């Protein structure tokens, strides 16, 4: 190939504030050929998004390119005028942003926002100028992106009427004729397929360019939005996250750019939706010949989706090359650690008390019961525990939680069953994982187990005692036995309190020790989670996400609980920190004989941490079993979809790999 489509050379980007200048990107160079794909991988703060935004001059705040060169189609963009960028954006370079929830203007209908992308880049779906030109020349319109004619809604109706008259119309044909999406050529071959001799004439007569509204519907359909024409008249808040991301993809591709920058396009979405959208994005860019610059923190995802990888760390490129080479033979120590830590690529159970070193130590009786449960049988409360004579520390039986949702009319309400007859046991010293996507009810189960919510029916037994039937004193004592760690490291520590006060609070609340003993204990706890004792004088806002999460863990451990409920406790952390925290959890489990109830959407993490898995969907446990069982022989479609959605699951390390066809 000749000159690359995009070429960065020694790019330096700086954020300047009154106090200091921070160097965000230092000497980054990369090349992307037309029609190819490249992924920039790095954790938060690595400068990957900053690099991407610099290409289209949309750096936030005080960000500035201070040195280096950005060339697009041979044109130098560093120092180019804003006008140059306005012409470039949308028309030649599209952007799919990170967070679908905040990237659509809430006050405008979807269709209008997509249409804006067409208008701003001078796309005329009717092709009026183009048609006039070809008429002048006297030749037919070729099927190039610029000359492509789309089916209009009126044209579709007329064509359907014509086909119905000839008795050739059926539902399949109806589905294949998509407003604003089907081209003249496509319609012609469709009609030929129906055996029509005048297919060319019919197609030419009825497919004659779409109105902007029709084309918007077509673009949305192309991005995989069902019922696009109706959907275009709705507002963003009526869409789910996945659907909004499809809208953003449609917008970015509306003017058929040569380059698409996808900045963590699916990080905010559920895993199965994530996979669908990435598949679709991959197919679309391949078909349109659009080059893809993919920004992600997930090495597995990057390797799966891009031909080339660029690994960034603290603003620098530490390694670059073909994806598979990097995965199989990482050179730089950082990349090596990243490959090692990537949960998507690991299949090893971190050591625990019950199954040290290896996973899959499951007794037969255990598996039997899992079968019973998945078939809807309930295990009797009095039944002796099966795990090698171990009594379950936690036993949840037929647990159900129904919420009342207030309706618009006074007095009206609807019932929402968040948790539906969920049963499971957690033997002492083991880890049980509840896995599911958002809305599956897994966090509600966590709150029920923590006695923060009252079950509608069913019961939670801890050490053989129903936690609902207890005196106030017993309830208070129960708090010492069961402790939570939540997902959001920014929300789980009181920002007004020092770390010392945060860690002392549980001890003080339960009247343990004198001040000196408590101070010693706080120091011990910090040490347990690998934080220096000086941390105690600090405040949460001075700590990183991983450090906060470790403080939250230390707080949970302060009372020496038997059961720790980890509600997405590592989901918000960077890969390397996540791996370390998982190690720490395993170590603590070994040393303190802790029992974990692990709530997560991330099956990759489950594989590293759990002994048993319960897959939840819409409030129910749809499948359960030992970790290896579930991973090797998933029985339910839903579980299979979850497994497939693990980034990098299609990659097998050590095997010869082919890029996606």
């Amino acid at each position, binding site marked *: 190939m000749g000159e690359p489509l995009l070429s960065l050379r020694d790019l330096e980007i700086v954020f300047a504030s009154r106090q200091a200048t921070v160097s965000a990107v230092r000497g980054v160079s990369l090349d992307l050929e037309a029609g190819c794909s490249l992924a920039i991988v790095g954790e938060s703060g690595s400068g990957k998004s900053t690099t991407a935004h610099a290409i289209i001059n949309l750096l936030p705040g005080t960000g500035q390119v201070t040195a280096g060169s950005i060339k697009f189609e041979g044109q130098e963009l560093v120092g180019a005028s804003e006008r140059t960028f306005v012409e470039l954006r949308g028309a030649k370079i599209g952007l799919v942003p990170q967070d679908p929830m905040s990237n659509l*203007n809430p006050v405008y209908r979807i269709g209008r926002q997509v249409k804006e992308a067409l208008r701003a880049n001078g796309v005329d779906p009717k092709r009026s100028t183009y048609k006039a030109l070809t008429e002048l020349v006297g030749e037919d319109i070729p099927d190039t992106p610029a000359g492509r004619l789309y089916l209009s809604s009126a044209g579709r109706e007329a064509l359907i009427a014509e086909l119905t008259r000839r008795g050739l119309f059926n539902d399949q044909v109806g589905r294949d004729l998509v407003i604003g999406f089907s081209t003249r050529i496509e319609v012609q071959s469709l009609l030929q397929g129906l055996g029509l001799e005048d297919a060319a004439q019919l197609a030419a007569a009825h497919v004659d360019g779409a109105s902007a509204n029709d084309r918007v519907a077509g673009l949305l359909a192309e991005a995989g939005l069902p019922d696009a024409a109706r959907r275009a008249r709705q507002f963003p808040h009526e869409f789910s996250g996945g659907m909004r991301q499809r809208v953003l993809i449609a917008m970015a591709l509306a003017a058929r750019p040569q380059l698409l920058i996808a900045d963590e396009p699916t990080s905010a979405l559920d895993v199965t939706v994530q996979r669908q959208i990435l598949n679709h994005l991959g197919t679309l860019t391949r078909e349109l010949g659009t080059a893809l610059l993919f920004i992600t923190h997930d090495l597995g995802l990057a390797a799966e989706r891009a031909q080339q990888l660029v690994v960034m760390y603290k603003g620098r490129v530490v390694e670059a090359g073909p994806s598979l080479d990097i995965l199989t033979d990482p050179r730089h120590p950082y990349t090596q650690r990243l490959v090692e830590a990537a949960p998507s690529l690991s299949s090893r159970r971190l050591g625990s008390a019950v199954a040290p070193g290896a996973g899959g130590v499951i007794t037969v009786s255990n598996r039997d019961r899992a079968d019973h449960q998945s078939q809807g049988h309930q295990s009797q409360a009095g039944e002796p525990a099966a795990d090698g004579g171990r009594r379950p520390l936690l036993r949840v039986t037929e647990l159900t939680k129904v919420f009342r949702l207030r309706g618009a*009319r*006074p007095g009206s309400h609807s019932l929402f069953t968040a948790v539906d007859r969920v049963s499971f046991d957690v033997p002492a010293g083991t880890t049980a994982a509840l896995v599911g996507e958002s809305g599956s009810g897994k966090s509600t189960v966590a709150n029920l187990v923590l006695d923060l919510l009252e079950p509608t029916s069913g019961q939670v037994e801890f050490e053989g005692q129903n936690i609902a039937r207890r005196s106030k004193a017993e309830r208070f004592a129960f708090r010492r036995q069961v402790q939570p760690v939540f997902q959001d490291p920014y929300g789980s520590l009181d920002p007004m309190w020092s770390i010392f006060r945060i860690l002392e609070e549980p001890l003080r609340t339960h009247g343990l020790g004198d001040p000196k003993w408590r101070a010693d204990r706080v120091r011990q706890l910090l040490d347990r989670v690998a934080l220096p004792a000086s941390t105690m004088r600090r405040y949460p806002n001075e700590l990183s996400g991983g450090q906060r999460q470790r403080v939250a863990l230390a707080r949970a451990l302060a009372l020496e609980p038997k059961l720790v409920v980890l509600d997405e406790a590592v989901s918000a952390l960077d890969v390397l920190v996540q791996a370390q925290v998982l190690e720490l959890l395993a170590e603590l489990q070994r040393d303190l004989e802790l029992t974990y109830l692990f709530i997560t959407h991330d099956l990759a993490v489950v594989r590293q941490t759990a002994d048993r898995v319960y897959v939840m969907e819409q409030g129910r446990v749809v499948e359960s079993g030992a970790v290896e069982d579930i991973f090797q022989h998933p029985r339910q479609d839903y579980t299979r979809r979850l497994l497939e959605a693990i980034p990098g699951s299609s990659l097998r390390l050590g095997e010869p790999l082919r890029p996606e066809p």
Partner: protein
Amino acid sequence: MGWYIGKRVLQMVPVFIGATLLVYAMVFLVPGDPIQAMFGERAVNPNVAAQIRQQYHLDQPFINQYLIWLGGIFQGDFGTSFSGRPVIDEIAQVYPTTVRLALMALVLEAVLGVVLGAVAGLRRGRWFDSTALVLSLLLIAVPTFVMGFLLQAVVGVKLKWLPVTVGADVSLRSLLMPAFVLASVSIAYVLRLTRTSVAENAQADFVRTARAKGLGAGQVVRRHILRNSLIPVVTFLGVDLGALMGGAIVTEGIFNIPGVGNKLFQAIIRGQGPTVVSLVTILVLVFMLTSLIVDLLYAALDPRIRLV
């Protein structure tokens, strides 16, 4: 939406009864003889006093007086003033002036506040922004009556550009100065609200996406930043209109404008209980109605708002 309006109206009933009861109590449940208060230092003819007492049910227990009065309100009867005219007539006489003044003030607020605020928000941290902020602080800090006298002294007396007081001449020209004085604090609030809102939206993700689509700077500002920023501003203006409609006691006093505020102040000073109570009742009604309209307006402007 019908259910929502119904629910809101239902919520208004206790608020209306509570507010009117409060005002009624403050006016009538006071030590001293309201009739004596009405006549000031002059001696009162006992027969006349007895007649008035009966006419206004002052001989009955307080709560009965209130209930009789409330019954009248629900039949559209706002009572008669001590001077014998129906209160509603007295209000009708002064209300148009107040409405005119209020609308002028609102226009000033909207135009000056939004324009200055939007420019300041788009140039955050630059000299225009700092100047606008200092200006807004001054407008808030200088009390209405000080602002009134200041403008009277400079624009009216010294420069003779505008009439010093209004009196019977309620033309747009003579109302311009009082309208500005009345609006001054709100101009500052609108300015600051617009500024914050514009600055916030300018940083929003969807604005970056709009730019990434290829929209020019002007289009981004007009279609995405301003349109979204105006939602809280319009809401504020609506609430403020409700307050302005209540008349401006101080401004109308300084500029001698025959409006509701002036009328109300005279009625309070002279102890004309029935007039005070009925006027305040109307103001409370206007206020509650505007806040309902503002809520509906908010939902109309922001599709995310669900009225429940």
